[in-house]
């Protein structure tokens, strides 16, 4: 405006240059600085948690810890034994959960992406999957406890690996449905039309064409859901409970079973140092597993995009 009023001559030469002392620029820069600080604060917890889990946990890891049974707390022992049975237990319980949740989740996802035409039912299922993923995990535990554990409905067994696996599967289900649905929607419609055009049936189209084409996103979703389930504790504390013994026979899945996450919970609140150290060792294993799965799926996802 100023240069117009002076008929073509600039009032001040530097007017169009950036002046960091203008109040708008001061305001701008200070907000940029504050947001940077907020971003640093946001990544601080991850760094702090990882540092302590590595410092306190990695030093505890050795062959004996990985292969022995935990000692029942009660006296101040020099060593609390190992987490061998809890490692097996976590694998067994999340395996049971996967056996239930993966077929149902992938099937439900196939329905939503391949069969539904945006009707009320499919809208409701999509909405229901979102709502189900928001249900607190402890509620899943409470429900399985009152349906399966307290009624002894499965062959008279009380707390069991099976009950634990079922309650984890409730938490995995919505994630798997959503990622299958979204993964299949990314598959180009041309592929479907081409398959149907050469005479493939709907079942063949889905099982031979669209599912393989969407394998990476679906697989990623399943693995992430599994990693999440492996770290879950709340649904297990009164379904799978805990055990100080090995899983020694297939019928053992009808018995209480130790898992890494419940071991961390039980031993973290014990007053004994040896048990606490075992909890840190189990945390290290669990965090290493969960983070490597997460980084791996990210890497695969990124590679798929290029």
């Amino acid at each position, binding site marked *: 405006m100023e240069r117009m009023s002076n008929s073509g001559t600039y009032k001040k030469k530097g007017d169009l240059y950036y002046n960091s002392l203008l109040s*708008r620029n001061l*305001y701008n820069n200070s907000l940029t600085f*504050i*947001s940077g600080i*907020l*971003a640093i604060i*946001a*990544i601080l917890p*991850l*760094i702090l948690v990882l540092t*302590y*889990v590595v410092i306190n946990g990695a030093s505890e890891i050795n062959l004996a810890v990985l292969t022995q049974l935990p000692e029942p707390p009660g006296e101040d022992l020099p060593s609390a034994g190992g987490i061998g049975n809890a490692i097996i237990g976590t694998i067994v319980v999340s395996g049971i959960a996967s056996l239930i949740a993966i077929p149902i989740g992938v*099937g*439900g996802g196939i*329905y939503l992406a*391949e*069969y*539904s035409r945006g009707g009320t*039912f499919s809208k409701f*299922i999509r909405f*229901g*999957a*979102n*709502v189900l993923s*928001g*249900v*607190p*995990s*402890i*509620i899943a535990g*409470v*429900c399985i*406890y009152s349906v399966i554990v307290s009624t002894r409905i499965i062959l008279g067994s009380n707390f069991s690996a099976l009950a634990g696996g079922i309650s984890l599967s409730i938490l995995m*289900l*919505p994630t798997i*449905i959503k990622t299958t649905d979204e993964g299949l929607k990314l598959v180009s419609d041309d592929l479907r039309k081409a398959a*149907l055009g050469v005479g493939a*049936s*709907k*079942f063949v189209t889905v099982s031979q064409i669209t599912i393989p084409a969407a394998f990476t996103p679906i697989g990623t979703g399943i693995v992430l859901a599994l*990693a999440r389930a*492996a*770290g*879950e*504790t*709340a649904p297990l*504390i009164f379904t799978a*409970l805990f055990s100080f013994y090995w899983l020694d026979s297939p019928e053992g899945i009808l018995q209480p079973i130790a898992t890494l*996450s419940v071991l*961390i*919970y039980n031993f*973290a*609140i014990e007053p004994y140092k040896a048990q606490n150290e075992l*909890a840190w060792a189990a*945390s290290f294993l669990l*965090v290493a597993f*969960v*983070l490597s799965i*997460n980084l791996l799926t*990210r890497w695969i996802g990124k590679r798929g995009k290029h």
Partner: protein
Amino acid sequence: MSIYGEFLVLPKTTDLYLLRSRPPSEKLIDLTFRNVVISMAAMVAVVLFGILVLVFTGSVESMGRYGLRFLFTSDWNPVNNDYGAFAAIYGTIVTSTFSLLIAVPLGVGAAIFITENIIPTRIREAIGIMVELLAAIPSVVLGLWAIYVMEPFLRPLLSGLHEYLGWIPFFSTKPIGPGTLPAILILVIMILPIITSISRDSLNQVPKKLREASYGIGATRWTTIFKVIVPAAVSGIAGGVLLALGRAMGETMAVTMIIGNSNAFNWSILSPGYTIASMLANQFGEADGAQVSSLMYAAFVLMVLTLAVNVVAQWLVKRLSLKY
């Protein structure tokens, strides 16, 4: 029925097309597959209603006995069968509200920082990944960290808070270790990734044109952010905040390990407290009789709270994605 259903009619009218007729077995497989996947999808509804019905029927006895009084008294006496969940409900609301108050500015601020071109893309991506990895850390590990690292580190600070601000009811007790405030802080860590990543996605969805138009008429970066970008993304951000609220209310393990688990009601957030989720985790395994029903009633309250919050959140997130 399906896209190719009509094709079957054609060969009968003319011999030009020698299309393979579909054997009954193939049709049967198709139909079976369709029905199987429909029933699998229906499982979601079955599980969801199953949970609702179970929690409701389990709590009917307690609802009849205590009615709404249950929500406003904090007796918890298995001997006299006198139950009230006020302390736990208060704890749930206080921990989730306070954790939101801290996590929302932090998360939205961080999301703005990593969606703006202030620093190189690589570093921004790295920050984004680190925040999301935080969400992957199991809650029980965060609880362990809170007990042995965070709480001992915070205790002198919290004592100072009590000394100088003790006249405020929220800080009126001496910190003795586990308590509501450490639980609030651990909840901040747990919901921060949700708020940051959903805010980042919503901010990224805002069309570039809006930003360019704003810069074009001479607005600065932060005028653009506050007046254009954030308002355009606000319903997505609000949806993310509500999802985080739902998560904070239902979060169990880390909170149970650090909140102190005391059913005695206290205004102070420095004293041990309770949330509905931690009460369930602590007592449900050993409860019997009227206590089970009362815990179910508390679970029902939690369920209703999280369901309401989640439904509104879904609606808000959907509204944004329809807009752009």
